[in-house]
């Protein structure tokens, strides 16, 4: 029994079919509790007023936007090194989710920035790197769609993902260098001084768990879709040969 067993599409389909309802249920539970708690039952911040409620979607979406890319990098590397199809398809399935999270982070950030900074958008390092991340997601998805042969597409997007990761890191440091930001520091860090206060902490944590679960549920479902499509394509190719 090793983790590579799940690289077998059939095994993956079985396991994910069992796992998916749990993931969906837990997602609904966590997001429900977290968002309702956050929206209805937390006090306003003394400085930011009611806008602090945006944190329950802004921070988890932003965290996941980055983590999804990391997951895509890992699965792409697994595909490049070990040639497991499920891995490549999981990366493909994850990209639109990552793009959506990036957009959510950008949009909620704009709505938050408007009353707090007096502007929808500022060329702040964090905002700018998210815009760049958004472009990376778009390019990645576009490349998947443009290449017809699925194995070629998986290889090319895999290489793009690895190279893109390096340049995404570079961009992150480049924009930091280029402009000092308006954006506050990390909301969640080990350094308690920087942290958000306790009232907001717990519902935020639940919301983050909810977003992680939402991603897991969606990525399982979308990977299953991709596997089905691949199987249909393979069968159709066999039909044409016969």
């Amino acid at each position, binding site marked *: 029994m090793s983790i590579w067993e799940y690289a077998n599409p059939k095994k993956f389909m079985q396991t994910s079919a069992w796992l998916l309802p749990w993931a969906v249920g837990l997602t609904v539970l966590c997001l429900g509790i977290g968002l309702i708690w956050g*929206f*209805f039952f937390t006090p*306003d911040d003394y400085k930011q*007023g*009611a*806008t602090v*409620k*945006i944190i329950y*979607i*802004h921070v988890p*979406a932003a965290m996941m936007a980055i983590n999804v890319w990391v997951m895509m990098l890992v699965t792409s590397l697994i595909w490049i090194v070990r040639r497991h199809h499920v891995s490549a398809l999981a990366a493909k399935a994850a990209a*639109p*989710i990552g793009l*959506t999270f990036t*957009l*959510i982070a950008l*949009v*909620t950030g704009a*709505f*938050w920035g*408007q*009353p707090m900074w007096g502007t929808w958008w500022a060329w702040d390092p964090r905002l700018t790197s998210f815009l760049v991340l958004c472009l990376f997601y778009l390019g990645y998805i576009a490349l998947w769609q443009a290449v017809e042969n699925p194995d070629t597409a998986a290889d090319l997007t895999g290489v793009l993902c690895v190279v893109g990761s390096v340049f995404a890191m570079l961009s992150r440091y480049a924009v930091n260098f280029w402009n000092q930001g308006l954006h506050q520091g990390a909301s969640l860090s080990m350094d308690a001084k920087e942290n958000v206060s306790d009232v907001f902490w717990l519902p935020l944590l639940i919301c983050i768990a909810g977003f992680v679960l*939402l991603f897991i549920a*969606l990525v399982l*479902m*979308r990977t*299953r*879709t*991709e596997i*089905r*499509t691949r*199987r*249909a394509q393979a*069968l*159709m190719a*066999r*039909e044409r040969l*016969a």
Partner: protein
Amino acid sequence: MMPDLGKYAFAVLASYGATVVLLAALVALSFWQRARAKRLLDEVEARAGKTDG
């Protein structure tokens, strides 16, 4: 029941609204793609089954 959002009502509600819209779009897209893939696979498998047997 509804908390008093004060002058920030628009910012908060718009953020939640936009998030719901975006996530709903993503989920709808995923379900639509799933249905399409399932239909396609069922079709092809039915055909393959016929020619095999």
